[in-house]
């Protein structure tokens, strides 16, 4: 297995995140949503697909408290959760 320590070859170029940095949730305003999401992961063997509703709720919490720029949830990959029709895609 190759490592990232390839002296002389091209190095990994980190890229900034598309939508910038999350402000810190200094007051833990969305902590309960994070806890629900983490519990979902632990209960579902860390399968992201089964916890998308919880991750959507966490991001909505941030948006409601100005801890994240408002964005339509469809653009954040939650389109299939919005129209109530499971199995689309």
């Amino acid at each position: 297995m190759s490592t990232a320590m390839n002296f002389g070859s091209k190095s990994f170029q980190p890229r900034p995140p598309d939508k910038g940095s999350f402000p810190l949730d200094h007051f833990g305003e969305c902590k309960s949503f994070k806890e629900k999401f983490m519990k979902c992961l632990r209960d579902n063997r860390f399968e992201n697909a089964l916890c998308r509703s919880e991750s959507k709720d966490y991001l909505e919490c941030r948006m409601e408290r100005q801890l994240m720029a408002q964005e339509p949830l469809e653009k954040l990959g939650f389109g299939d959760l919005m129209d109530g029709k499971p199995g689309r895609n």
Partner: protein
Amino acid sequence: MVPVKDRIIKVTFNADVHASLQWNFRPQQTEIYVVPGETALAFYKAKNPTDKPVIGISTYNVVPFEAGQYFNKIQCFCFEEQRLNPQEEVDMPVFFYIDPEFAEDPRMVNVDLITLSYTFFEAKEGQKLPLPGYN
């Protein structure tokens, strides 16, 4: 963006701090299973155990190297200064997806593990940070 549901990838998480930064910094999950095209959320946690405010700034790395181009962070906590007050502890989310084109790249055919590593440095005025490959 359509998820490629038959291509499950395990993403694992590392957390490091540079020697001069006295934060406790760790991932809140060891791994998460995703598919290309599906947005995913993961958390790190950072605590400043000292009695002074400390400002950190982080960079990240993705291995295997070739998979890094498909790893897209929608939003995270990197590259901007983050200030933690004395004894403060915060959740640090990463919201990301693996580009669906990952599933079309023949070089990725045997890649089913991607590791995301974040390293925090202390941000001090006038100090040039050793962020390899990033200017």
